[in-house]
């Protein structure tokens, strides 16, 4: 258990929120005439195009400072995250009673799985906020983006189902306004579809959470609790059918959010119509909320249900890979093609999760980060093409490499990452997912591997139609190459893409222990889930073995005894109960939220 004097997770969640509020309080002369108001609520007549290019302005400066400060805190978190003991449980846990009458705590924590999602979020937000050319009301834009960042952080870090649900739903609001306020021609349709579709999915999530809490209460001494760890401990003793139903509720909600075929039809519209920054964040991060929820709420809390439904989800993922690939190939618009390609990528994530092998799940987590980096970069580059050319239809493009050689090179690097070229991040994740799936579910992997061919087909065909060939359209003749500023913006993503491809070890070392712990839970709860005993060679640790050996939730299992002096000195709480303490909120008993 790692704790620090600094309530770092709270800072990470509240800092962007504070930034959003500051943006809201800033004076803005143009508030009454923003494109947002004109476009979103006007009916009947076509929405006007977003306003002229905005300068950074005071809101922009606030946004920049907050986003970079946030990034600094997250970097601190990543560096401070214990590696020496390969701690599997939640670290930096912060727990405060919030709505005590219902057993709701404000409780945050981070483990190897969420650590890099948080890092990716913190990295992608400043890039999305300041990379693309901003049009329209910068104050509202910065405010929504910072609110979105806070909500995403809250979702990834929450250890309380109520906090999770609230944060998960809050993301929809900025998401809606970003699409509706700064989007393309059909932005109102797209934003409405996005909101209603995902909100409908959330109904299942809500019901599942309430059902879980109510059913679990009698087994928790009659106390209601929304605490993730306590619920995970209790859920195993619920009737089998209840667990499966609860999992199904989670699965439907997250399948819409992820989105898994056949719940995907909101995605192409939304991503195509969203502004560049919106697409980057939607694809890079909001996708991952669903995938993360599937892992954290689905597999972690109700492993029995997950094990029961695994064949269904694996099949949906495999079908999604093939089906998504076929659809992607035929797209006629670059942005729409990238949006559909995302369906294939996220299907890989789900495939890896439900393979229930440590390689598969670790690969799935890596794929989440990969997809954030790669898709973020790709949407940014697509946005540059859009800025320059005003069209993304393949029939209007072609031969751009002639006038944009550096852009073409950067784009090719990102495309190769999406295809899964070894040496870039995409390959490591994809390979781990497939090798992990093959070990447990051979034929699903054999089907899914088809994507190595189809991904090359649609990505390279798209690349060819945009950058290669003779310049037939004179408008493509003298297009300005990528600027130094844009290059600097995309550079961190490229560095991440190459680094994770060449040396993923620091990443994997932090993720694997948490994944092993998760799979131990699945193995304990559902012995017939065929979890392969693959994680016993390199990184099997005393802490993990203790957890595996002891009864679920036993408070005696010492965790991460080697995790170093500062934090773990006094409180060697057990991993499953994660009775964390930050100064000011000391809770001692295992899972005791009262």
């Amino acid at each position: 258990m790692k704790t620090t004097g600094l309530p770092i997770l709270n800072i990470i969640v509240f800092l962007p929120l504070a930034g959003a509020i500051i943006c809201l309080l800033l004076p803005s002369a143009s508030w009454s005439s923003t494109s947002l108001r004109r476009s979103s609520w006007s009916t009947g007549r076509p929405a006007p195009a977003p306003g002229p290019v905005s300068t950074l302005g005071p809101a922009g400066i606030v946004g920049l400072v907050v986003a970079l400060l946030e990034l600094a805190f997250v970097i601190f978190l990543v560096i401070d995250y214990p590696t020496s003991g390969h701690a599997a449980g939640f670290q930096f846990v912060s727990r405060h009673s919030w709505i005590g009458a219902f057993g709701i705590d404000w409780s945050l924590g981070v483990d190897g799985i969420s650590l890099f999602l948080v890092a990716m979020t913190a990295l992608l937000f400043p890039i999305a906020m300041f990379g693309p050319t901003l049009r329209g009301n910068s104050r509202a834009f910065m405010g929504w983006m910072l609110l979105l960042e806070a909500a995403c952080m809250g979702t990834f870090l929450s250890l309380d189902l109520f906090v999770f649900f609230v944060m998960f739903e809050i993301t929809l609001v900025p998401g809606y306004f970003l699409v509706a306020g700064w989007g393309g021609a059909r932005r109102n349709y797209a934003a409405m579809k996005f909101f209603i579709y995902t909100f409908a999915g959330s109904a299942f999530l809500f019901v599942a959470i309430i059902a879980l809490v109510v059913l679990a209460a009698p087994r928790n001494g009659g106390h209601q609790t929304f605490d993730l760890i306590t619920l995970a401990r209790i859920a195993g003793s619920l009737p089998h059918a209840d667990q499966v139903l609860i999992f199904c509720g989670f699965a439907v909600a997250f399948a819409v959010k992820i989105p898994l075929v056949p719940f995907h039809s909101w995605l192409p519209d939304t991503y195509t119509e969203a502004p560049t920054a919106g697409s980057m964040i939607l694809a890079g991060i909001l996708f991952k909320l669903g995938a993360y929820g599937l892992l954290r709420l689905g597999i972690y809390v109700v492993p029995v249900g997950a094990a029961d439904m695994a064949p269904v989800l694996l099949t949906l993922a495999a079908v999604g890979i093939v089906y998504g690939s076929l659809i992607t190939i035929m797209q006629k618009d670059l942005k729409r093609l990238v949006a559909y390609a995302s369906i294939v990528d996220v299907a890989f994530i789900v495939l890896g999760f439900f393979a229930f092998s440590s390689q598969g799940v670790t690969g799935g987590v890596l794929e989440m980060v990969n997809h954030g980096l790669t898709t973020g970069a790709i949407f940014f580059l697509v946005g540059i093409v859009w800025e320059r050319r005003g069209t993304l239809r393949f029939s209007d493009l072609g031969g751009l490499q002639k006038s944009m050689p550096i852009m073409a090179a950067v784009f090719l690097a990102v495309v190769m990452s999406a295809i899964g070229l070894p040496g870039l991040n995409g390959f490591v994740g994809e390979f781990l997912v497939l090798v992990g799936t093959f070990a447990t579910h051979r034929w699903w992997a054999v089907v899914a591997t088809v994507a190595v061919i189809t991904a090359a087909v649609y990505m390279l065909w798209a690349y060819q139609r945009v950058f290669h060939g003779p310049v037939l359209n004179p408008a493509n003749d003298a297009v300005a190459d990528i600027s130094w500023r844009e290059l600097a913006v995309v550079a961190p993503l490229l560095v991440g893409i190459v680094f994770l491809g060449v040396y993923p070890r620091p990443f994997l070392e932090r993720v694997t222990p948490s994944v092993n712990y998760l799979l131990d839970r699945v193995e304990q709860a559902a012995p017939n889930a065929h979890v392969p005993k693959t994680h016993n060679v390199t990184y099997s640790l005393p802490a993990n073995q203790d957890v595996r050996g002891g009864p679920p939730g036993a408070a005696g299992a010492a965790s991460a005894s080697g995790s170093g002096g500062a934090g773990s000195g006094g409180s060697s709480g057990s991993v499953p109960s994660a009775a964390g303490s930050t100064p000011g909120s000391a809770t001692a008993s295992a899972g005791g939220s009262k």
Partner: protein
Amino acid sequence: MNAAYLIPALPLIGAIVLLFGGRRLREPLSGWLATIMAVGSFVATVIVWVSLLGKQASARSIDKNIFTWVPVNSLHVNAGLQLDPLSILWCLFVTGVGSLITLYSIGYMHGDPSFSRFFFLLNAFVFSMIVLVLADNYLFSFFGWEGVGFCSYGLIGFWFDRDTAAVAAKKAFVTNRVGDYGFMIALFLLFQHFGSFNYRDVLHSHLSGSFATGLALMLFLGAVGKSAQIPLYMWLPDAMEGPTPVSALIHAATMVTAGVYLVARSAPIIHFSSAAQWTISIIGAATALLAATIACNQNDIKRVLAYSTVSQLGYMFLGEGSGDYGAGIYHTVMHAFFKALLFLSAGAVIHALHDEQNMKRMGNLRRYLPITFPAFMIGFLALAAIPPFDGFWSKDAILAAAWHKSPALWAVGVLTAFLTAYYMTRQVVLVFFGQSRWFDHAKERGAAGDHHVYEAGGVPHEAPATMTVPLVILAAASVLGWLLDAPFGGLDFINKWLAPLFPPTVAPAFSVATGTKWLIGLVSVAFALAGLASGVAAWRRAVDRPRLEPAVLEHAWYIDEGVSRTVAGPLTRMANTFSFVIDGRLVDGLVRAVSGSFAASGRQLRRVQTGYVRNYALGISAGAVIILFYVSLRAGS
């Protein structure tokens, strides 16, 4: 032995420098940098080779672990090098031929606006190829395997503003990916079965026959893609859209032999499965014959050589499938020499004629190209397997192995030898002998606006020294290279060198009687000479001989078109159906139907909302009355 690290490191450094600083270095500095890095890598390889020579035959293996690449529990993959006889042999000719071709490119690519990009890709290619052969596990080899694929993509599509080049590049990458599908499945099988990808762990186990067959065939599928065998050979002729040095380096001498390397490396797996061995040799023989027939009727100087490469790769697989890995590898090395020579000479011809590639518009060039002509002739004789040039000896070894495997395979091989001699003779005659036809066509092109061609009675000129020096070195290698593994006088260096890798348990020794050997040799010489003679007879005078040039061969048996029509067409239609009918109308249609049903019910219900206060008031009153009525009923009962 730190020189081992230098082998991959030098081209990598070169590539990185050229990637970031290439635009500032410009011509010809970036070319020289790339050449120096490639030569340095070659020198380092020689140093390692010499140090290995000084060791016992069984101890000739150095392992170098660089770093841990992918550690996830039991999956633990290192980025590590394994320098053993097989990998060093490959490395020697990859870096050696690679250095020469990089040097040659300085002259060939002169004046190209993307000069530095070319040399970045060349160095990156050499690096990837080195990783492919030096890696100590299958996954790290796959890293190099895909790396060469990527560089090949970049180099085929180097002149990206040509549609044909762009399409060919994509086709090459995608076709290779079909093979990679097999390679990846093989990797999964390896992990599931062994929990490791290391050659050291994998290649010393006893395998069951069915598992070995599956694994070997999946690996071979990878090799088929990379080495352009049936059914995945179509990309290689199209790959000739790239600059000629690329065709020489990647699509003749090195990258396409990666499949041969993979099969040789996996020999301990393959030998457990006779089905896999038969598959490899039959596919090899069939590819050799098919590609040779097509090569007989191509007019593009490079496409002839491309089909010839496919055909020769078929020979290599025939040798390996027949159990004589040494022969297959011997032919690989010899082929690297003479095919690189042929391509570079062809490049010099193309260079001399200002990018003319049609052989029917050449002729009589022997008078103008004093260095290229003899170089091409040597390559021609080596490829046509005329003793004592390189090709004869290695092909003879393969044919002997094929005879041992099955006389039918041998017969296919001999027939192919005849065709090889024939199409190469046709090429030589059309290019270097006969009438000068380039002048008329040049005038036509001049009229079409290309004024630079042969103005003021100019003639084709010999290439600069950076181009001719590699030609001379490769020509010497094509004349003398066979001594590396001559079947007499204890000169079989390659066989002895590789012996530790192919012990009798893996590749059982077989002996073909000396008399039979002689017979096989004589028959193949006879067929080669017959091919040569018929080629001369047919093409000495005429340029167009429609009866010898049926359209079916010119269109490569219509296989490419046929595949497009029967596979690509329906697939496209299916994808179209999926994306616009099923996804657009069905899946999204269902969603829109749900939202539409809400909208429709709303439209019906809105009629109640008339807007008149009295209606609402009446509604309220009626509701109150009904409630009162209900309550009083309840109270009454």
